């Protein structure tokens, strides 16, 4: 895969072809995920989010442009992470797969702390 790990911790998890890699973003606080967020990659996703919310930055970026699918539990993990932020801090999700908006609208219609950029 043509991805270079730039700095900091990265996590990768794969099992039987379902794979998720998470890398720190360059130049701003956040992570970029590559692969799929589902049952087999849940641990890696949760660990990445847990690490992300420990950052003290006001805006935490999550680039999902190379995530092909995210399930309800994966969106829930993101929503729970966003809810854990205090003092106006937010998670900004970039270019998520289409499931994310659908699940947020149904399961988390009034969720604050998260913003999605298409």
């Amino acid at each position: 895969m043509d991805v270079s790990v730039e700095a900091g911790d990265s996590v990768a998890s794969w099992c039987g072809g379902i794979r998720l890699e998470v890398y720190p973003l360059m130049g701003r606080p956040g992570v970029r995920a590559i692969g799929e967020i589902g049952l087999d990659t849940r641990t890696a996703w949760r660990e990445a989010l847990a690490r992300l919310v420990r950052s003290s930055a006001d805006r935490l970026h999550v680039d999902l442009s190379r995530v092909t699918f995210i399930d309800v539990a994966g969106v829930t993990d993101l929503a729970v992470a966003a809810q854990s932020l205090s003092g106006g801090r937010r998670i900004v999700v970039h270019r998520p797969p289409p499931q994310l908006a659908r699940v947020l609208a149904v399961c988390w219609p009034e969720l604050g702390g998260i913003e999605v950029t298409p």
Partner: protein
Amino acid sequence: MTNAVTTDEMFVHPALFYRGEQEFLAGTVPFVLAGLAAAEPVAVATPPEHLQLIRHHLADRADEVHFVDMTRAGRNPGWIIPGVLRRFADAHDAGRVRIIGEPVWAGRSHLEYPACAQHEALINAAFVEREVTILCPYDTDGLDPRVLDDALATHPLVIDGAGETASAAYSPELVVARYNEVLPVPPDAETYHFESSSQLAGAREFAVRYGGRTGLDGRLLNDLALAVAELTTNSVIHGAGSGTLRIWTEGERIVCEVHDAGRLVDPLAGRRPQVPSEPGGRGLLLVNHIADLVRVHTGETGTTIRFYLGS
């Protein structure tokens, strides 16, 4: 006709057996007005013709009532508790809430009706100890006698031309069991067996390819992918680790089901609104929201959850 619905109990769930428009109005409009007089939040969720009737007869009081088109919001009976009834009740949790909910009408299909009857039965479990009154109108001219018999079993109280009586036939568990029907699979169904979590993506892609071939558009394909992912993931987690996905077309709709060897022990699964602080348990709720209809069969041979998606 009496309109004095008993309110000394917490949850009150009467069936209103009406014949014709006048009896419908006599049973519903005073019920709404009594709620407004007691400063109770009132919602009316019925087919559109009945919404119009009630709205017309409430005249300038109609603005105080929340109206819901049950043929849309409640098209899947499995979504009525979380998406219509509890959505309204939970938003007004100080004091009694009053709802008219008409989930069964003459146009309900034979596929939908079993889910309607189970829904009516499960309302009782979903609102235990809640200060809520839900009045369910039943059209005694338009509905099958079997439907009216079921209503006697799913409602502790019955109101008809003779007044208000406790239903001697009240037995909601019996109705849940009665409509826990084996769901026949057509011979042209396409099948995908999954044995472990590593095949979840394969099952989802199998369903999406089928949906794409039948011309599903982007939103419905996305919904299909999500629903399949939730049901197959549940099978891997709760259903002995494996399962079978089947998919076919009925008329304009895609029908998809997931079968596994597990047994669904919680009849309210997928019908509780999500609690923001609680992770998990949203998969079935989402399937209930996006599907036109969800049917469930569970027993000794395992559990099948079938959903219908419109095109």
